[in-house]
């Protein structure tokens, strides 16, 4: 009953993160990061290396237990719950590197994803066709080219029918020609009502896919808002591209 009441309050909100912090000894990987994602929304997370992007994904997805703060999924507090629990509740993630069951066929990988999540999403066939995986269903997944392995990891996470999906650099290691396939997967997922959080370094992809973006720097939120506006801010350019440093170095010289 309590859960239902909370869901009524949150409405379309799929994921709420409040003041999330994560420390490793004296290193503060995350410092009080908060965000909200609604159903069908695509939120981009950008920041320089070491900004805490992957730590954020790990802390939300249960891979790392947050030091402080809370994670609410569909109105339920799921802070620190295990990845398998979160996946069964509808929050799944993909990985920066290709992450598949390398010894199994593509088909078996998909069957495992569906069995473990206890459900299957609509449109798996479309995802398979869009990525070219339908032609290699019987192949050993570990023998596929890297791009297809990466696609398989994405399709597996989407085929579990998630309500929230966290994508950690989905375009990393892909050829330019393969990136539009990721766009289609993400767009299809969001159109189906899934909330998508994308951590990415590819600014073109962020501009294409994400109406809103958050910038992390040194574990803390630096900026958030409409993508075009945020990416034009001087402090973001300075933090992300080191523009300020370059200018000051030039003027010093």
């Amino acid at each position, binding site marked *: 009953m309590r859960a239902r009441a909370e869901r009524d309050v949150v409405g379309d909100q799929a994921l709420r993160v409040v003041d999330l912090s994560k420390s490793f000894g004296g290193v503060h990987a995350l410092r009080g990061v908060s965000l909200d994602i609604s159903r069908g929304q695509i939120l981009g997370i950008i920041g320089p290396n070491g900004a805490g992007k992957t730590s954020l994904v790990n802390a939300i997805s249960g891979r790392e237990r947050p030091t402080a703060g809370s994670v609410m999924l569909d109105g339920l507090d799921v802070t620190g719950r295990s990845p398998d629990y979160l996946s069964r509740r509808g929050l799944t993630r993909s990985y920066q590197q290709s992450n598949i069951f390398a010894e199994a066929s593509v088909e078996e990988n998909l069957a495992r994803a569906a069995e473990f999540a206890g459900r299957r999403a609509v449109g798996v066939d479309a995802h398979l066709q869009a990525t070219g995986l339908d032609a290699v269903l019987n192949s050993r997944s570990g023998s596929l080219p890297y791009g297809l392995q990466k696609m398989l990891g994405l399709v597996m996470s989407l085929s579990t029918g998630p*309500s929230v999906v966290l994508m950690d650099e989905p375009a990393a290691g892909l050829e330019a020609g393969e990136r539009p396939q990721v766009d289609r997967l993400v767009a299809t997922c969001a159109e189906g009502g899934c909330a998508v959080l994308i951590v990415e370094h590819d600014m073109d992809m962020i501009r294409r896919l994400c109406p809103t973006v958050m910038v992390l720097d040194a574990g803390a939120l630096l900026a958030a808002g409409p993508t075009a506006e945020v990416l034009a801010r001087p402090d973001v350019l300075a933090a992300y591209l080191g523009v300020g440093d370059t200018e000051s170095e030039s003027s010093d010289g």
Partner: protein
Amino acid sequence: MPRLLSSPASLAVSGRHERQAGRRLDRRLTMELGVISLLVGLLFLPLPAENLQLISQMNQAVMVLGAALAVYVMLRLNLLHFGVPAFMAVGGYSSALVAIHITDNVVALVAVSLVVPALVAVPFGLITLRLRGTYFALVTFLIGQVVHLAILASDRLGRTDGLTGVPAPTWGDVVMGDALTTFRLGLVVCILSALLVAGFMSVNSRRIDSLRSNEVLAASLGLRGWPIRLGSFVVSAAAAGASGFLVVNTLTTAHPSSFATLSGVNYVAYVVVGGAASIVGPLVGTVALVFLVAQFASEGVYASALLGGLLIFTSLFLRGGLTSTVRRIAEWLRDRRTPVPRASRQRRAVDEGQS
């Protein structure tokens, strides 16, 4: 809320995935049931009762097959289990205590040797299954040492003398004391252990393969790993316990030296040499090594050297053990006779990867 599958097209694809995977499982299960049927057939084979050496060697093989199966169950999860002698001791001693003090009914003794180690495995499993790799191997070795020391410290368990004069099991008026009956009882217990292990592995095959292959991914897709690992540990303990009962039954004594921690290395060797793709591997490895070692019985040092040498040779040159090597050779010979279409080769590569 998560969207559920509703598209007929998706249903068709998912149904196909499950049928394909099901066929692969069926193949493994069929092979395992075939081997278990062979063991059942051996029960009815007329054996030369006068050839005591042969009966003794066969009995030695069935006596430790449960221990090899116990190692195999955990090795399927990439966990090297050196604590098997501890659970053999629990099964052996508990059945001996029941035989001495309560009943010598064979069904009761076998049941005790299966159930008590399985129960003891639960708390041990909750502690040790958090660990992986070398740490798991070390801690299971220590469990063996702890149980061994507990036996040596217990008056009730006879300390260094053990429990002597354990009565032979009975079935109605039949006393199962002679060599041939002891072997046949051992075979029945082995068949029970093999059915237990094959059944558990068959039901959980996909989950076990996934945990072995990529635990992080399996968890992020929703698989709860610890019930599978704990279930495997419990089944492993039950198989080891049944093996312990057979040791005590053969020797009519429950003695600490029968369950020395270092003997765990032998059981690991049986599985590594035989192969860990199915229960056929431990069976082949156990029979092959028990009979080979018996040839060096008078020279204990050579027997140890043989085991160690085979372990090194298999690890270096026969990855996957004897069973996988034989299968690869058979496939190579078949391919030489008839060219195999590319798709079939691909399918076979997938099957090999999964085993």
